[in-house]
């Protein structure tokens, strides 16, 4: 399967993957099977907007407005970051015009 996310894709965290506030280490982590990803601020901001309803375009717009930044640059970064999670099978998404989960 290809690295298929686009601006219209609607990402979601599948069952078995979740955000966790690690109070011992004072950081946010993404918990997945056999893996824990320590999240920096940007990654956390993106993942907090991943809710299975918003598209990547909407996520990028939201971040662009908040940080007063160029939406197209942010959009490309978000797609890159989320694609790497799709490859690791810890992110699901609905693609525009289909109901296929990658």
């Amino acid at each position, binding site marked *: *399967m*290809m*690295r*298929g996310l686009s601006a219209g894709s609607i990402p979601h965290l*599948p*069952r*078995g*993957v*979740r955000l*966790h506030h*690690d109070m*011992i*280490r*004072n*950081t946010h*982590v993404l*918990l997945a*099977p*056999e893996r*824990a*990803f*320590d*999240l*920096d601020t940007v*990654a956390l901001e993106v993942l907090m907007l991943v809710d299975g309803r918003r598209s990547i375009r909407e996520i990028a717009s939201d971040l662009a407005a908040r940080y007063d930044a160029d939406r197209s640059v942010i959009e490309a970064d978000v797609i890159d970051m989320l694609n790497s999670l*799709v*490859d*690791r*099978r810890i992110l699901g998404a609905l693609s525009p015009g289909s109901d296929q989960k*990658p």
Partner: protein
Amino acid sequence: MSDALNDALTPIGLLAELTHRCPLRCPYCSNPVELERRSSELDTATWCRVLSEAAALGVLHVHLSGGEPTARSDIETITAHCAKVGLYSNLITSGIGIALEKLRGLVEAGLDHVQLSIQAADAARADSIAHLKGAHDQKLAFARHVIELDLPLTINAVIHRGNIDSVSDILDLAVSLGAKRVEIAHTQYYGWAFVNRAALMPTRAEVDRSIALVEAAREQLQGRIVIDLVVPDYYAKYPKACAGGWGRRLMNVSPSGKVLPCHAAETIPGLTFWSVHDHSLADIWARSPAFEAFRGTAWMQEPCRSCERRERDWGGCRCQALALTGNAASTDPACHLSPHHSLIQTLAAAESAAPSPTPIYRGFGASAGRQHIGETA
């Protein structure tokens, strides 16, 4: 992504060995030859306390394992407690017996992930390895139910000379079952696997072929399934950072409540293991003699002591060093810099070339198994 998970000296994983009881008798089983009995197992309240302590200490993942963890009648309560205190729960199961029936309840209790072991891709071979007729079909039914319940599934297959030619079929089966992850785990020679090493050891040619196959499949299957490979030590160049380094990332609680830095640590003579009956996990992590014994690098001998990789692989596995060199503080012979490295290569070559002896099957009252440890070298 930053690195807080690697820096701090707090454990991130807890292996909860809920019981040693198990309906299967895999000859490669890494569990100790002397299994702990049901009468000594921790009760529900104690497990729940230990899990609360683990969460407070910074543990993120709990692996509910054994033996067969679903053989515990309180597995749902224990799982629910993990969810309650925010721990990510991973059920490591054979999928045999009562496991299927309990699955829905476990999902309702908040189980996060299932790791199911299989022995081969075809029923005849799988059942003969697991030593139980019908085992493979039960596992397939279990896997389907995991997917029906929308839980993420990892398939684990332990690889040895009896199934190394079917790695490709195992990968195909994992994909067709809908697993997101598959572990191709070459046998680690602990417990019963050490006893049965000659019956399990593949040849170097077989190992090389299977690793090349996994690497090719990884690319082909990217985005569909993640393949994790546990490489075989006896043919390795460098050892694994066993347990991520002694006393650095993992704690292992035995069925009776002894807390070990790794699964096999009890094979090392002279170590004192503290029990959850007498101490908190935090106390054990910080102060118990067994955790202190090989933490860091001060205990190392040459060639590890002055090696630039010493904080990368932490000298490899202490249990393997002991089993193969007689000294738990020596360099893991899996390392090509170890003076014992050529010895284990010779041993692997000889054992894999000889006809496979009949394996000794695990069970309680294991005196037959123990006799053979000394004979394998």
